């Protein structure tokens, strides 16, 4: 557990920028991920491949700064021929990293500290060259730092700092009466406040634990004078705060860089590298603040290009284009898993309809799977080798979830066939397979189809959760919206998902007429 807590350091910084309610699940998922993650080049990835080889896909994590940096990369890469696709808010570090390693995306923004601690799990590896060397063995390259360091920091009101002449953390020693309000986590961590106090010899006695968001309010009202923060936090600019220089280099560096697959072509790699050293803390803080206010990440990125004296227009995906992409992916997830459920569920239902121990085991298993909440089912599959954080996990979970209605309805439909009809089929001299195909399955078709319909509707709804593990679909805007507390974005996913479920229901009603023999509908 200690190890996990330690390596989660930067993950925390991400969660600070979005809604706290997304934290438990993300933490839960990530703590389940096994260290050695098996990669398979697998059929599923091929089947749902929707981007052609010459396109480049940029990913991002799900917090404001990562969104903005992703848009900046997109703006830069648009200067090369070929399509640029941006998939914002795919998930936490592990998810985007896996996506990069497996080639699902080619570029995403990352921080050097996170690379050492979470990705390489070698906190001692700090220098850019040694990090770069280790990344190469994964087929991943790293740009030079973009120019800002998003690390832990102590902040004060600008007016107060200027009045007392405080510019760096060492200056705090001269003012022992300052009141410190620190997040509980920073306060408790061994490598947080206790060691910081020891290194700088800080004398302050009035140190209290306070929630991050409340801390900013307390700082503004003067109830506390110093609090911990992340150095490019949008709130720093909004509240006119100042970051105290870490003059003894106590905090590890979290220099922002772009990671890219080494298979990325030269032209694009060169374009990415031009971003080096072009964003300092002040600029990033302002871009973050603007993005948080407007929810327009492309707009914030445009502001960056303006600051470089370039055209500020970033071609952003039109809503209809995004909606189409989400919907297609959603239908791929739900459709493919439904197909698997049918292929597996109907035969299982046939076996189960014969009763006996095997039948009980099948129905029991399918029933148990159904009682697992869909979120938990996803989480349970993630640590299983072969699955992990991937589209296959989403499909596997949806497949298992869709199994019970099909198995049960197939079994019930077959069991409900009157004995007189079964015996008539036998007495005619039909072979067992002909009986099944020509007599039993058609008679049970209404029940089987209604099971499939139930599965389909459940799958459409449940597939929104697939976005939690970076599998995309209409859950993508829903999860982003939840993370950013943006209701419009939530609705952009929720409404189409609901409409889709209705459409599917309607399609199946139509299909009933085509597939259920007329004699059974009279």
């Amino acid at each position, binding site marked *: 557990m200690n190890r996990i807590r330690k390596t989660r350091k930067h993950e925390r910084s991400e969660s600070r920028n979005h809604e706290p309610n997304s934290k438990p699940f993300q933490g839960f998922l990530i703590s389940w991920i096994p260290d050695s993650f098996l990669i398979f080049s697998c059929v599923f990835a091929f089947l749902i491949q929707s981007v052609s080889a010459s396109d480049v896909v940029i990913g991002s994590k799900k917090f404001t700064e990562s969104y903005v940096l992703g848009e900046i990369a997109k703006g830069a890469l648009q200067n090369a021929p070929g399509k640029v696709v941006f998939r914002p808010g795919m998930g936490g570090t592990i998810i985007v990293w896996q996506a990069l390693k497996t080639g699902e995306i080619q570029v995403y923004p990352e921080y050097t500290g996170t690379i050492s601690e979470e990705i390489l799990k070698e906190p001692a590896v700090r220098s850019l060259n040694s990090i770069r060397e280790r990344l190469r063995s994964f087929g991943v390259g790293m740009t030079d730092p973009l120019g800002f360091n998003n690390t832990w920091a102590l902040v004060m009101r600008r007016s107060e700092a200027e009045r007392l002449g405080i510019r760096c953390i060492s200056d705090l020693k001269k003012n022992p009466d300052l009141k410190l309000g620190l997040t509980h986590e920073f306060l408790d961590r061994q490598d947080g406040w206790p060691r910081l106090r020891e290194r700088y010899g800080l004398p302050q006695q009035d140190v209290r634990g306070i929630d991050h968001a409340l801390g900013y309010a307390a700082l503004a009202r003067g109830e506390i004078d110093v609090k911990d923060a992340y150095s490019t936090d949008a709130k720093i600019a909004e509240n006119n705060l100042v970051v105290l220089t870490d003059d003894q280099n106590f905090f590890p560096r979290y220099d922002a860089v772009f990671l890219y697959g080494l298979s990325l072509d030269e032209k694009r790699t060169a374009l990415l590298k031009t971003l080096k050293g072009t964003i300092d803390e002040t600029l990033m803080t302002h871009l973050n603040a603007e993005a948080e206010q407007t929810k327009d990440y492309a707009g914030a990125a445009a502001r960056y290009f303006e600051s470089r004296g370039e055209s500020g227009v970033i071609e952003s995906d039109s809503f209809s284009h995004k909606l189409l992409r989400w919907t297609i992916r959603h239908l791929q997830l739900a459709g493919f898993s439904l197909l698997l459920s049918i292929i597996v569920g109907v035969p299982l239902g046939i076996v189960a309809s014969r009763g006996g121990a095997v039948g009980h085991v099948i129905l029991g298993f399918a029933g148990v799977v159904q009682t697992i909440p869909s979120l938990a089912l996803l989480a349970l599959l993630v640590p299983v080798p072969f699955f992990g954080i991937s589209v296959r996990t989403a499909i596997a979970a949806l497949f298992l979830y869709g199994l019970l209605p099909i198995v049960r309805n197939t079994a019930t439909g077959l069991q409900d066939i*009157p004995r*007189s*009809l079964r015996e*008539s089929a036998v007495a005619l*001299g039909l072979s067992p397979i002909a009986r099944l195909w020509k007599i039993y399955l058609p*008679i049970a078709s209404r029940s089987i189809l209604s099971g499939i319909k139930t599965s389909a509707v459940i799958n459409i709804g449940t597939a929104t959760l697939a976005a939690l593990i970076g599998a995309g679909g209409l859950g993508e805007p829903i999860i982003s919206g939840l993370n950013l507390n943006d209701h419009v974005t939530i609705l952009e996913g929720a409404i189409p998902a609901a409409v889709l479920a209705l459409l599917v229901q309607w399609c199946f009603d139509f299909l009933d007429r085509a597939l259920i*023999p007329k*004699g*059974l509908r009279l």
Partner: protein
Amino acid sequence: MSALVKLANVSKRYGDAVALYPTELSIESGKTTVLIGPSGCGKSTLLRLVICLIQPDSGLIDFDGERVTHDNVNALRRRIGYVIQEGGLFPHLTARANVLLMARHIGKPEEETGNRLLELCELTRFSQNLLSRYPVELSGGQRQRVSLMRALMLSPELLLLDEPLGALDPLVRASLQKDLKEIFARLGQTVVFVTHDLAEAIYFADEIVLMNEGRIVQKGTSIDLRERPAEPFVSEFINAQRGITIV
């Protein structure tokens, strides 16, 4: 006279309940044999054993001189027609498809089966206009005629009828009885007919097989049963039924 079906020492039990004690029975070619007796006497069990819907616990069954085994049972079933009380028509198939099901399955030429179907319609007095109807769109009597056509489609050597008229109202029943008897005569059909109705048994039977509690009590004509009862149960059964028929 030759025996088409021979049961030797055939018995069947369900758990502790004996459905049929070891039984000997020959079914003569070209004759109508009626199995009769009170409910649960084993008459349906006997019929179901002949077409292998259930496996005997002991004994052997020969069909046309051939031992019935697991391997040849499906081939033999195609030489036997089977009609049950509810008709057993498949609800998802039209009357035509029900009748032609087996012929199509074994790949008989369409022309041959088409002609056979017309013959059967005429034989069973079933209107061709109704062939495209589904079972739910037919009356009880019409359904039994379709069921009979289906049973006769492949010109079976043996026709088994398990209370085929049991669910019909008296008028329909009477007209079907008459038609059936004519059909059996025209085809020279070997028939095993299960009923619990003595009048119906007497009307159809060349030989009546009276059963009680899993045993054959007496075989013979109606006169044999009346004049020379093998045991008191025979008279009891006949008198009970006669009382009902007279009233």
